[in-house]
């Protein structure tokens, strides 16, 4: 695979594709000259992106850079105004697909359905049966919430709600999971727990994961590869060739983080320096 984009040559890095895990049940994603325009505003500019099957890709960037738009297109919630993309072998049409699931920034649980019924929502088109309940319970157990199956969502904490949302996304065994800043609203400790949980289920199920986040350290803790988007273009494409489980605060992570932050903050360099 060629993770390094031509216009990101300054950030050229060796090809670490050999380090990626063996081919899994995830789907590869190919985006070719993807463009999205809202009225006069061009949010994505002819963006090329290839995500190999089973890769954990993190997309970082400032707010409004187009990273969420890109993710929403990949997850089938939005459509490109130019270019095309493929999920697996089929050309992806706009619309929901059973093999792709998205986890939103908010839990978006149905307040009038029990925790278990909320997880069953992930089994689209399936009315509640003994089988769907069993699968939903298994998935709830995987996120450690099987004892809350009969509760209303309103009695859960923010982290627990997001875990239910994760179970809902996973219950149909998707081959592609889109994560739209799902941990943005959680407190620091819950965040770290959730990162561990997401890494664990990704390693076990081997789906392709694309995580949009503004938190560079979160991207580095989880991803095989970090892509940075600036003004609707890929400005940096970097593999994260570190073994898992990754040690929070290790020197390697810190060096990579500094590189990404340096690029992110580049624009600020033109600001006058202050003398104390």
């Amino acid at each position, binding site marked *: 695979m060629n993770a390094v984009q031509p216009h990101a040559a300054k950030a050229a890095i060796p090809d670490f594709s050999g380090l990626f895990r063996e081919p899994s049940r995830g789907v590869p994603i190919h985006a070719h000259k993807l463009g999205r325009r809202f009225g006069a505003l061009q949010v994505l500019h002819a963006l090329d992106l290839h995500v190999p099957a089973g890769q954990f890709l993190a997309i970082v960037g400032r707010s409004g850079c187009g990273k969420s738009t890109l993710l929403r297109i990949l*997850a*089938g*919630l939005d459509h490109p105004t130019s270019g095309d993309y493929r999920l697996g072998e089929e050309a992806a049409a706009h619309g*929901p*697909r*059973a093999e792709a*699931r*998205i986890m*939103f920034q*908010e839990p*978006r649980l*149905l*307040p*009038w*359905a*029990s925790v278990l019924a909320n997880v069953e*929502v*992930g089994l*689209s*088109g399936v009315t509640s049966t003994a089988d769907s309940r069993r699968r939903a319970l298994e998935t709830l157990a995987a996120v450690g919430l099987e004892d809350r199956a*009969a*509760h*209303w*969502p*309103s*009695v859960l904490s923010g982290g627990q709600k997001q875990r239910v949302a994760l179970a*809902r996304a996973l219950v149909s065994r998707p081959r592609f999971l889109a994560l739209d800043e799902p941990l943005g609203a959680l407190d620091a400790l819950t965040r770290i727990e959730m990162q561990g949980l997401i890494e664990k289920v990704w390693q076990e199920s081997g789906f392709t994961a694309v995580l949009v986040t503004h938190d560079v350290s979160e991207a580095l803790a989880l991803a095989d590869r970090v892509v940075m988007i600036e003004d609707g273009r890929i400005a940096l494409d970097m593999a994260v060739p570190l073994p898992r489980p990754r040690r929070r605060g290790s020197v390697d992570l810190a060096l990579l983080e500094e590189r990404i932050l340096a690029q992110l903050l580049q624009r600020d360099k033109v600001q006058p320096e202050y003398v104390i």
Partner: protein
Amino acid sequence: MTNIADAFILKSDARATPVWLSRLKSARPGRLSAWLVPALILAAWQATASLGWLSVNVLPSPAGVVRAFWKLTLSGELAANIGVSFVRAALGFAIGGGIGFALGLANGLSRISETLTDSTLQMVRNIPHLALIPLVILWFGIDEGAKLFLVALGVFFPVYLNTLHGVRNVDPQLIEMGSSYGMTRGDLFRRVILPGALPSIFVGLRFALGVMWLTLIVAETIAAQSGLGYMAMQAREFMQTDIVVLAIIIYALLGKAADAAARLLERRFLQWNPAYQAQGARP
């Protein structure tokens, strides 16, 4: 020194709440305390009537009302009139509420339907429906149709407006979630939009129940040949204040019963809502 100490003791004593006051504050009102004031009023009413301070032509005694109740129950007149009024209320409510609910859903879900009907409905809404009584009598005479029409019209708007509002205000993020998780339009309606609109629909329902009784009372007192309102108007002709008061009390009880039924439904269907939840509630 002792003076200062005394002053302190005095001060702290003065601050302490007297025992009787703290008892009064901590006393939780029992279930029966809510009936204390009505019971006192009733006793005072009976006393003034028994002492002859209150003319029967102005207000009958409570005992007189009870006697009237007993007499009319035995003759079967009361049950028949309540039955007639109840059927009118229920039918009018079903017709008006049904149309209001259907149009509220249609206009909440479809732009075309809304553009076609909403502004017309908003214009009609501004006519007090009781102002139509002369016209309604001309159209329907004093038949059942007149009462049903008025009740249905009165009930229609609260149900319509609140259903529309409820459907409009369903969290769009939940709808996006539902459709991205592969829900069909039917699923989306059944599992997201309808339950999301339900709290607002219940507000409309309770409001409509109030309008329903009000409209029926007015319609029955003006043009009817049976029913509670007719019974009260007949009694007025013969100065039977006890029957008039009895009819008023029965209207109050029916209104209260309808509201209680609506609240029961609310608690049953909105259990998930923290506003209706007992602690640790489960589905």
